């Protein structure tokens, strides 16, 4: 039952690390949940779990990796709790056809040749690209944004997302398709178009 003192991490160091990480945790939770109160709850629960579980922290894994891993679980708890509420608004149809109209002619061919993109993650401009990417993610409608980040940040597969949210696969696929199309369009305008930067 006794724990070797040298196995746990120093509480002061952990406190400093949590304080330094807090803005990141909150930003990620907000991006995924799109609700400030839920995001605050997820982060508070994460901090609590980190402090309670500090002795279980395995030194071979990075501290941030461990903390963000806990955050992901807490964020998913929030999604479960709130997205399954019967008061959650039903999937609203948006201007999906408008987006496709911008891209394709009546006969289904591209109106314009898509641009040749260059790798946005080259070292020098990475931070700038990330902030544009996050702005475009925030720009997605709430439901699309949530399912998209469940895929790309929480890394859940389609069946897990359907199970967690209680939605049908076809419904999910439509939302993900719209989100991807929108994100591509947003990045094209705000990052890849040469005069955008």
């Amino acid at each position, binding site marked *: 039952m006794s724990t070797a003192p040298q196995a746990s991490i120093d509480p002061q160091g952990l406190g400093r690390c949590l304080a330094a990480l807090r803005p990141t945790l909150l930003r990620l939770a907000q991006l995924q949940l799109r609700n400030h109160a839920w995001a605050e709850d997820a982060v508070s629960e994460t901090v609590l779990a980190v402090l309670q579980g500090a002795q279980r922290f395995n030194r071979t894994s990075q501290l*941030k*990796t461990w903390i963000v891993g806990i955050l992901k679980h807490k964020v998913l708890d929030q999604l479960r709790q709130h997205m399954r509420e019967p008061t959650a608004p039903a999937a609203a149809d948006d201007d999906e056809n408008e987006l496709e109209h911008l891209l394709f002619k009546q006969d*289904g061919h*591209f109106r314009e040749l898509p641009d040749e993109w260059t790798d*946005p993650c080259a070292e020098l401009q990475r931070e700038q690209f990330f902030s544009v990417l996050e702005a475009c993610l925030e720009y997605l409608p709430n439901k699309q944004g949530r399912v998209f980040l469940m895929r790309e940040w929480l890394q859940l597969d389609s069946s897990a997302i359907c199970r967690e949210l209680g939605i049908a696969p076809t419904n999910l*696929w439509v939302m993900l398709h719209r989100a991807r199309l929108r994100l*591509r369009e947003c990045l094209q305008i705000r990052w890849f178009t040469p005069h955008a930067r």
Partner: protein
Amino acid sequence: MKIPNTCRDVTHLLLAREDRALPVYQRLAIRVHILTCRACQRFERQTLMLRGALRVWREHQDHDDPKPPR
């Protein structure tokens, strides 16, 4: 089932491929169309680049140490 053969159909599949495994006939339809369609070749490269960028973003958020607070 309708054979996907327009750019609209093919981009639909290229995006769907990011989220689920496609049946063989759809994967084949992508390859056949892309062989001769420059626009969809570009769109596919964009899709792959976005996949890679999202992975780099995720790894950065999940693992990289934050900048020390000032």
